[in-house]
Every structure is written in structure tokens, then in C-alpha cells.
């Protein structure tokens, strides 16, 4: 019997972790993800989980301890944000190369300087090349569901890659919404037991991880990681289908909202999608044919899905909550690339919005659409909500 409650993205994440009952969690607090290990540590203190909670001295230590536990054979989860994620950066590619299936609740917060605790995607975007799977969640329900699904995706033998489950800091992590929870047994049955590949604790079959691999072998090892990432899509679809049968909740790799007959589409990720959908409804009521495309899976990037939906449109606006200073914004660059490869030229505008938690309003979303409707196309990066 599903249980409904009002909770926040962070608390939903902690609840998912309680039901997943990982073997090890090594974590360090940082706003706005602090709630997650904090709430989880209460579960540990109350004996509600069997987890070995390791309270380390920094995020670098947290991810290092997580990695060691994971390759030992443990099921491992953790959480962090912003410069905490940045401090972990050095270890991230090692986690991916060791094929350690760590599930990581990343609560998006802008990277300093200046110091700012609020939301943008600069922390996770800085890690987009590290070989991890990236999922961006619009709301707390999706965070809860995604953490559970990610345990299976990460541990699947054709994947064996770590996963970032991202949610917008404060906006999703701290605001309350109604959520439907699975029963503890349902989560347990869905995720099953971990069957680790080369666990260090298997002393009868000893292995060494991460030895020196010079100019003769490094390249081949990276190619193996690339292959694993190519398998994610198929595995994701199987697992999300299974999850859909269990819960009735569907999570396509990209979510298309009123795009079929749309002339103009805005592409966006995470919580700001809500404002864009509202703008779509408002403009449609005024007779404009507009739609919204939410990208949920950012790595591996779903070029084909995006190209299929956007081909034939008259104009596209891509909204990024992170800038890539000195180049095109991350989502914009990938979307443009997807269109180019599909052989269609659709004028595509780039907007950077919401940096440092700058609020994104309905009128900002409308502005992106009205620029398109007015035929104001340009490859120059624009800004929504910025004071000139």
C-alpha cells in the first residue's frame, strides 16, 4: 500500500536511502545537501538501517571512503553540493574507471566564488566529463524514484557506472510537496542484492585496482568506459519500464510537453521546467504553438531523442542554468550538436538563467518564447533575469 506524505527533496532522498539501506555511506555536510546525511544519520542512530556511516573530515575523504567501500563489494551512497562536489573532483574519474556503482544525491548549488548557497547547475556541469551518469530531477518525487532506480542502473552488469541524481538546491531540496513512497519491501525487492564484480573482500580471488597503465593501455581502458556509457540507455529503459509497472510513474529520458505540433520549443532541465510549462500553457491559450522539452538524462546525452523532437520546428530556445565561460552553455552546445548531426538547421537561441539561485519567473520563460515568435534568432548567448 503506497504511503503519501508531504516532504522535501532532501528528506525524500534520505527516505529512499533508508529503504535502500546501503552498506556504507561516507559523507560530509554542505548546504543545501546537508539534510540528506543529517537525516540519514538519525536513521542510523535509531537503528533503522544497517549502514556503516562514516563521518569523514572532508568531501574528498568522503568520496575516497565511498570508493574504497564500493570496490570492496559494498553498496554505497552519498550526497554533496557545490564546492564539496568540486573537492571530490579528483576522485570522480577514478570511481568511474573502477566501475564502482556509487549512487550520489547531488543537490545543485552554484560553485563559489562568490560564496552563495543557492541553486544553479555549475557544480554538476563541472563534472560532466568524469564518466558518471547524470540524471536531472524536476521534483522531489522524481528524486525519490530516481535514487531507487539508479541503484539498479548503476549495478547492472552492462553498465557498472556511478550515477549523479541531481536536484535543484533549496528549490527542490527544501520545499515541501506531496510524495508517494513505496513500501520498504517493494524497494528491497526492486533493488535486490548487489552482486559485485571484483570485490576486494573476496580474498580467494584477489585483484588489484588502478595499477599503472601507460601509453600502451590507458586509451583502451577509457574506451571500455565509453562502451559502458553507451549501454546505459538500453538498461535505463528496461529499469524505468520495470519501475513504471511497479508505481505507474514514467520517466522517459527526455520529457516532451506539447511539442508534437509546436512551432517553437524551449529546452530546459530540472525545476525551472515548471515555469516553462506554465508559459507554454499561457502562450497556447493566446494561440501560439509552443512546447517544452525537459532533458532528464544529461549523461549519456540523448542526441537522437532530442533531434527527433526538435526537427522541423521553426525555432528553439535552450535554457541553461550554468554557463561555460568562454564557450557555449553546456545544454545549448549539446542540443545544437544534436541538430547538426540530424542534418536539420533550426534556429536555436541560447539563454543562461538562474545563476546563483536568481529566481526564474514565468515572464522569463515567456521572454524566451516571444523572442522566437518574433523571429529574433541569434547564436549570441542571452541572459534571463540578469540586470544589465
Amino acid at each position, binding site marked *: 500500500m503506497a504511503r503519501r506524505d508531504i516532504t522535501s527533496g532532501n528528506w525524500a532522498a534520505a527516505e529512499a536511502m533508508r529503504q535502500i539501506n546501503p552498506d556504507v555511506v561516507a559523507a560530509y555536510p554542505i548546504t543545501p545537501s546537508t539534510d540528506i546525511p543529517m537525516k540519514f544519520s538519525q536513521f542510523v542512530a535509531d537503528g533503522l538501517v544497517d549502514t556503516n556511516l562514516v563521518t569523514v573530515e572532508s568531501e574528498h575523504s568522503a568520496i575516497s571512503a565511498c570508493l574504497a567501500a564500493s570496490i570492496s563489494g559494498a553498496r554505497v551512497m552519498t550526497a554533496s553540493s557545490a564546492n564539496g562536489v568540486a573537492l571530490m573532483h579528483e576522485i570522480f574519474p577514478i570511481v568511474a574507471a573502477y*566501475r564502482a556503482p556509487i549512487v550520489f544525491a547531488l543537490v545543485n548549488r552554484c560553485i563559489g566564488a562568490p560564496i552563495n548557497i543557492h541553486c544553479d547547475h555549475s557544480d554538476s556541469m563541472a563534472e560532466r566529463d568524469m564518466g558518471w551518469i547524470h540524471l536531472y530531477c524536476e521534483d522531489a518525487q522524481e528524486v525519490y524514484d530516481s535514487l531507487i532506480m539508479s541503484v539498479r542502473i548503476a549495478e547492472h552488469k552492462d553498465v557498472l557506472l556511478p550515477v549523479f541524481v541531481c536536484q535543484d538546491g533549496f528549490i527542490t531540496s527544501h520545499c515541501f510537496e506531496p510524495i508517494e513512497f513505496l513500501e520498504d519491501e517493494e524497494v528491497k525487492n526492486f533493488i535486490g542484492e548487489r552482486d559485485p564484480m*571484483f570485490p576486494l573482500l573476496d580474498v580467494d580471488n584477489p585483484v*588489484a*585496482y588502478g595499477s599503472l597503465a601507460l601509453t600502451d*593501455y590507458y*586509451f*583502451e581502458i577509457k574506451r*571500455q568506459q565509453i562502451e559502458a556509457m553507451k549501454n546505459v540507455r538500453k538498461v535505463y529503459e528496461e529499469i524505468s519500464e520495470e519501475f513504471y509497472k511497479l508505481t505507474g510513474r514514467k520517466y522517459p529520458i527526455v520529457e516532451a510537453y506539447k511539442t508534437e505540433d509546436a512551432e517553437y520549443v524551449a529546452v530546459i532541465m530540472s525545476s525551472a521546467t515548471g515555469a516553462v510549462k506554465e508559459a507554454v500553457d499561457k502562450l497556447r491559450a493566446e494561440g501560439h504553438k509552443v512546447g517544452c522539452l525537459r532533458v532528464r538524462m544529461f549523461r549519456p546525452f540523448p542526441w537522437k531523442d532530442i533531434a527527433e523532437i526538435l526537427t522541423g520546428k521553426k525555432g528553439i530556445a535552450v535554457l541553461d542554468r550554468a554557463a561555460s565561460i568562454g564557450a557555449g552553455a553546456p545544454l545549448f552546445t549539446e542540443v545544437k550538436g544534436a541538430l547538426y548531426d540530424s542534418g536539420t538547421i533550426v534556429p536555436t537561441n541560447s539563454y543562461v538563467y538562474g545563476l546563483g539561485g536568481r529566481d526564474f519567473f514565468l515572464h522569463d520563460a515567456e521572454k524566451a518564447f516571444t523572442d522566437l515568435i518574433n523571429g529574433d534568432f541569434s547564436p549570441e548567448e542571452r541572459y534571463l533575469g540578469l540586470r544589465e
Partner: protein
Amino acid sequence: MNLKGWKDLPPATVVPASTAEQVETGQWRSMRPVWDESKCIHCLQCWVQCPDNSIKTNEEGKVTGIDYFYCKGCGICAKVCPKDAIEMRPEADFI
């Protein structure tokens, strides 16, 4: 040399354990420690200080020789020996 393609490599950067045992670090020597049993008092200082576990001993705790498969010729054993029972000689002497 037959180098493997990416499909033939084990995943996750994994290699079998303890492969270091097969590496003949003794090939790296340019100076060789020579042990004079007649001078040795079996104090085991050389065994204690050797960074490569290359001083051979028996069950009675007496030195029996040098493990030249691993010995890299660092000379610490010769330096710490209180009886000068170990002499460092050029590896070239033994070709």
C-alpha cells in the same frame, strides 16, 4: 609484443593481485651487496633495515644470504652492518 585491444582487457582497471612478486627488481642494480658469512654476527640489522625484504634468513633467525632477484642495491645493509660484513661491489664485476 602482443598488446590487447580494449575488448580483451579485464574491466575496471583490474589486474590479478600480487603480480609485483613476478617483477625482477634485481635487474635495476648497479651495485651488488656481497655478504661475508665469516664476519657476520647475525644481529639482523641488515634484515631490519632492508626496504625490499631481500635479506634471507632461516628459522633460527640467522642470515643466510641476499635475495638477488629483488635486491635493488640500495646499500643500506652495508651501511648499517656493525661488522662491515657486507661490501657493495659494482654489478659489472659479476657479469
